[in-house]
C-alpha cells in the first residue's frame, strides 16, 4: 500500500482509533472481570475457610466442655477418689472424640507421701480402655506444658499438637483445664484435668479443601507448626517460619506471624516455588490455631487469561478482515476520483470535450461529475470568449500602435529643425505613458524672423486625450500663420475648442513667439507649468505664474500676453507635469525644486544634452516605478542675432 494514499490514511487513522478504543474497552473489561474474580475468590476463600473452621470447631468445642465440667465437678467434690478410674473409663466411653483423660494433682496434695498423683484413662494398642497413674521420676508431669502452663497461668490451655508417645501414627493435642481448691480461705490450684484428642480427623477435614487442582489448605498450630499440609513431610516437622526460611521467603514469615496472631486476612504473596498465590487465613478461636487457604493466582485467572488470549486473537483477526474490507471499499469509492483526475489532466491539455468517466454511484461522485461537466462547459465557453476578446484586443492594440505612429508623426521630430537658422537651436521629446498620449509640443516659423513654439498637456490620457491633442495641434497650425500674437492665437484656439466641447476636456497650453532677430519673446501661458529661463552663468529661474486658465474650458476667455527679451545664449526649458510629478515607489514627486536645481547645474549644455540629462535624472528618480504620465520636454537656445553666432 503506497504511503499517503487516501486508503492508507483512512486505514491507519481508523485502525489506530479502533485499537485505542479496543484497548480501553478491553482493559476495563479485564480489570473488572479480574476484580470480580478476585472478589469471588475472596468470598469463596472466606466461606470455605469459615466452613472448615466451623467443622473443626464442631469437634473441638464440645470436647472443651468435658474437662470444664469435670473441673467444676471436682471442685464440688462430686468425684470421690476411689471411683476416679471407673468414672474416667465411662467418660472415655461416652465421648469417642477423646482418646485419653487425666486428672493430675499438685505434688503431695492427695497423699503427703506421694509426689505424683494423676489417674489416667486411655485406649491401649488393642483399642481397649486402660487405666494407670501418670508420673514418676521418668515422667515429671509438673514440668510438662500440658500441666505447667495452665497451672502457672491459671488458664485453660490447648497444647501444641504432638505424636503419641510410644509411636504409632496417633496425632494428638491436649486440652488442659486447671481446677481449684480452697485452702485457708484462699483459692488455690489443685491440679489439672487434661483430655487428649486425636487429630487424625483434622487432616481429612482440611484436605477436603483440595478441590481444584492446586488449591489447598493448611493448618498452623499456635507456634506456626504445620498441623496439616499437602506435603506430609512438613507436618509436625516444619513451622511456617522454617518453611519460609528454607524457601527464603520473608513474606511467608509475615503471613505466618499474622496467622498465629489470630488475624483474618486475604493477601497476595509471590512464592518462588509455586508462584503468585492468594492466601486467605482465619483463626480457629478455640485452639488459637489458624487455617490458611491457598489459591494459586494462575488457577484463579486461568479461564480469564484463556478468554483474554482468545479475544485478542479474534480481535486481531477482525482487524485484519476490517483492513482488507476497508481498503477494498475505499479503492472502489476512489476509483472514479483517479479517473476524474485523469480526465482533468486531459482537459488541462486543452481537450475540453473529452467524455467523463461514468463510474461511481454515490451522491458525492455524482456531484463531482456534474461539477466536472459544468467546468468543462464553462471552460469551453470561456476559451471561445477569450479567443474573441483576444482578437479584439489585438485589433485595438494594433490600431493604437498605428494611432501612436500618426500622433508621433504630427509633432516635429527632426532635429535640428532649422539647420539654416543660426539664431536658435531647439530640441524636444515626447514619451507617452500609454500607446497614445495627451501631451503635445510644436514649433514652426511663422515667417523669416518669428518662431512660434508651443507645449501643452491635455486633461486625461489615452485615446480621447490624443484626439484632443491632435485637434489642438491642428488648430494651432491653422491659426498661427494668421495671427502673430500669442494672445490672439490662444484666444482663437480656446474659442474653437470650447465650442461643442461636451466632454469638457481642456488643455494647458503655453504659446510663445520669438523674434529671432531681436530676442523679443511674446507669450501666453494658459494654465501650463511655468517654463524655466536659463541664463548661462547668470542663474536659472521659473517664469512667472499667470492667472490664465487652460484652453477649452470657457469660451471667449481673454488670455493675457506677456513679453520679455531673450539674451544671447539664454535657454528656455519647457516641460509638462509628467516631469515634475513623476513619482517613485515611495510616492515622492520629482518636484519643481529638483528640476530647478538640476537645470541650474547644466545651464551651459545644449538643448539636446539638457533634455537627455533631465530624462535620465527623472528616470533615476522614478526607478522601477511605472511611468504614470507622458514625459514631454522642449528646450530652445537663443544664439542672438545672425552676426553674433560666432560668439556662441
Amino acid at each position, binding site marked *: 500500500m503506497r504511503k499517503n494514499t487516501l486508503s492508507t490514511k483512512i486505514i491507519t487513522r481508523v485502525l489506530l482509533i479502533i485499537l485505542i478504543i479496543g484497548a480501553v474497552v478491553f482493559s476495563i473489561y479485564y480489570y473488572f472481570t479480574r476484580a470480580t474474580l478476585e472478589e469471588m475468590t475472596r468470598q469463596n476463600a472466606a466461606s470455605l475457610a469459615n466452613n472448615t473452621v466451623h467443622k473443626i470447631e464442631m469437634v473441638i468445642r464440645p470436647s472443651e466442655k468435658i474437662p470444664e465440667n469435670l473441673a467444676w465437678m471436682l471442685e464440688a467434690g462430686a468425684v470421690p477418689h476411689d471411683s476416679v478410674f471407673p468414672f474416667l473409663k465411662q467418660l472415655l466411653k461416652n465421648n469417642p472424640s477423646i482418646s485419653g483423660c487425666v486428672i493430675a494433682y499438685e505434688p503431695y496434695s492427695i497423699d503427703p507421701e506421694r509426689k505424683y498423683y494423676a489417674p489416667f484413662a486411655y485406649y491401649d494398642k488393642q483399642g481397649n480402655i486402660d487405666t494407670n497413674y501418670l508420673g514418676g521420676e521418668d515422667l515429671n508431669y509438673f514440668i510438662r506444658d500440658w500441666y505447667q*502452663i495452665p497451672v502457672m497461668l491459671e488458664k485453660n490451655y490447648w497444647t501444641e499438637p504432638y505424636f503419641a508417645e510410644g509411636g504409632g501414627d496417633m496425632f494428638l493435642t491436649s486440652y488442659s483445664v486447671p481446677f481449684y481448691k480452697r485452702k485457708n480461705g484462699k483459692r488455690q490450684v489443685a491440679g489439672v484435668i487434661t483430655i487428649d484428642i486425636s487429630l487424625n480427623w483434622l487432616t481429612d477435614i482440611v484436605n477436603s479443601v483440595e478441590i481444584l487442582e492446586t488449591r489447598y489448605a493448611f493448618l498452623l498450630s499456635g507456634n506456626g507448626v504445620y498441623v496439616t499440609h499437602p506435603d506430609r513431610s512438613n507436618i509436625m516437622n*516444619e513451622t511456617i517460619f*522454617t518453611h519460609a526460611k528454607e524457601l527464603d521467603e520473608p513474606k511467608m514469615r509475615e503471613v505466618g506471624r499474622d496467622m498465629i496472631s489470630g488475624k483474618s486476612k486475604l493477601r497476595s504473596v509471590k512464592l518462588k516455588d509455586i508462584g503468585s498465590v492468594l492466601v486467605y487465613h482465619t483463626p480457629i478461636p478455640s485452639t488459637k490455631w489458624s487455617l490458611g487457604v491457598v489459591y494459586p493466582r494462575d488457577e484463579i485467572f486461568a479461564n480469564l487469561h484463556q478468554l483474554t488470549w482468545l479475544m485478542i486473537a479474534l480481535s486481531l483477526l477482525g482487524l485484519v478482515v476490517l483492513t482488507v474490507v476497508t481498503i477494498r471499499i475505499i479503492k472502489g469509492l476512489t476509483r472514479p476520483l483517479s479517473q476524474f483526475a485523469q480526465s482533468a489532466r486531459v482537459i488541462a491539455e486543452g481537450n475540453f470535450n473529452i467524455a467523463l468517466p461514468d463510474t461511481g454511484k454515490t451522491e458525492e461522485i455524482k456531484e463531482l461529475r456534474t461539477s466536472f461537466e459544468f467546468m468543462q462547459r464553462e471552460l469551453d465557453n470561456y476559451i471561445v470568449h477569450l479567443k474573441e476578446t483576444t482578437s479584439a484586443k489585438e485589433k485595438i492594440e494594433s490600431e493604437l500602435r498605428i494611432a501612436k505612429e500618426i500622433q508621433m508623426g504630427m509633432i516635429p521630430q527632426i532635429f535640428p529643425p532649422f539647420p539654416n537658422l543660426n539664431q536658435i537651436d531647439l530640441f524636444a521629446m515626447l514619451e507617452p505613458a500609454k500607446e497614445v498620449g495627451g501631451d503635445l509640443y510644436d514649433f514652426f516659423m511663422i515667417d523669416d524672423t518669428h518662431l512660434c513654439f508651443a507645449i501643452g498637456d491635455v486633461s486625461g490620457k489615452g485615446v480621447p486625450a490624443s484626439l484632443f491633442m491632435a485637434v489642438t495641434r491642428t488648430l494651432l497650425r491653422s491659426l498661427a500663420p494668421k495671427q502673430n500674437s500669442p494672445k490672439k492665437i490662444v484666444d482663437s484656439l480656446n474659442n474653437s475648442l470650447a465650442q461643442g466641447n461636451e466632454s469638457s476636456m481642456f488643455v494647458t497650453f503655453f504659446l510663445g513667439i520669438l523674434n529671432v532677430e531681436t530676442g523679443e519673446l511674446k507669450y501666453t501661458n494658459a494654465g501650463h507649468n511655468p517654463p524655466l529661463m536659463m541664463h548661462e552663468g547668470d542663474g536659472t529661474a521659473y517664469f512667472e505664474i499667470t492667472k490664465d486658465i487652460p484652453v477649452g474650458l470657457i469660451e471667449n476667455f481673454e488670455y493675457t500676453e506677456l513679453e520679455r527679451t531673450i539674451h544671447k545664449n539664454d535657454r528656455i526649458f519647457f516641460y509638462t507635469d509628467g516631469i515634475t510629478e513623476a513619482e517613485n515607489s515611495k510616492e515622492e514627486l520629482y518636484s519643481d525644486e529638483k528640476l530647478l536645481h538640476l537645470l541650474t547645474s547644466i545651464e551651459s549644455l545644449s538643448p539636446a544634452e539638457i533634455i537627455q540629462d533631465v530624462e535620465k535624472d527623472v528616470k533615476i528618480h522614478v526607478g522601477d516605478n511605472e511611468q504614470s504620465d507622458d514625459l514631454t520636454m522642449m528646450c530652445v537656445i537663443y544664439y542672438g542675432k545672425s552676426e553674433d553666432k560666432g560668439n556662441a
Partner: protein
Amino acid sequence: MMKNLILTLMALFALCFAEAQTTTIRFAPQWFPQAQFAGYYAALDQGFYQEADLEVKIIHPTDDESSMNMLISGKADVVSSFLMDGLTSRLSQEIPLVNIAQLSQHSTLMFVTKASSGIDTLKALDNKKVAIWSSGFDKLPRALLEEEGIDVEFVPIYNSINLFLEGGVDAMTVMYYNEYDQIINSGVNEDELNKFFFLDYEGFDIPEDGLYCLQQTLDKDKDALRKFVKASLKGWEYVDKNREYALDLVVEKMNKARLANSRAHQRWMLDKVVGQLAPMDKNVKQGHLLEADFQRALNIIQSEARSGAEMKTLPFDSFYEPLVD
C-alpha cells in the same frame, strides 16, 4: 631353641591378629539425633571409622537412660558431654571419666527475654521468673546470676519453649544453636528478643561438647580411642565443607528416630556447632581443652557446692588426657 621358635611364632601370630582386628566402639551422644552430632554421623557414613579399623556404633540416649548412665553401665565406651556435666559427674558422682578431646570451645548458653517486657539488662532480671532445664545444664546460669548479684525465681521446665512464649516466665535459658532458633521459628522476630550471651561475661565462656570415656577404657584401648577421636575430627572437617550432605544425614537420622525435624533449624544448629569448634581468641589448639577453661568450670562447680560437701581438688592432668594430635 624349638621352644623359642614356637614362642616367637606365637608372638608374631598374636601381633598379626591384633593388627587385623577391628575394635568396636560404642559412642553415645548426649541427646537425640540432631545436627549437634553431624560430625560423627559423617565419619561413620564416609567410612572414616572403618578406615581406622574401628567399628563404631552410635547409640542415642532415651528418655529412660542418659548417655552418662550408659557410660557407667558399660553400654557405651565413649560419650559426648558438656564440660560442666563431665566435670560434675567426675566430682560429685565420682565417675572415673576422663576428657579425651574438647571439641566445642565456646559457650552457646544465653538468656532471652521478650523485648516487650523491657528487660534489657541482666540486672532487670532481679525477682523475675527464669525458665531453666530441669535436666541439668543449670549450673552456669545459676552461677552467672549469682555472680552478678541477681536474685531470680528459677522455673524448671522440660524442654519446650511454650511456657516462655505463653508468658509464664520472664526469661528463658536457651542454647543459641537450639532453643533460640526454635523461638525464632515460632514466629518471634529477632528484634523482638533481648539476648544475653554467656560468652560476653568474663569467665563464663565455658566450652561445651567434649568426648569422655572411663579411665579403664582409656587404659585398655588408648590406640583405638585415639583413632576414634581422629576420625571424628575428620568427620567434623567433612561436614564443615559439605553442609547439605550433613543435613541430609541428620534429617535421615531424625526421621528414623521419629523426631520432629526441620532442615532450616538443623542448618542453623550445624552452623553454630561447627562455629563453636574454632578456638578464635582462645590460646588453644582445636580439639584441646584450655586449662584456664577447665579451672573456671571447676571453680564454678566448687563455689556452687561450697555450702555442701568439702572442696575436692582435681588436677587438670587427671581429668584431661587428650588423644588429639
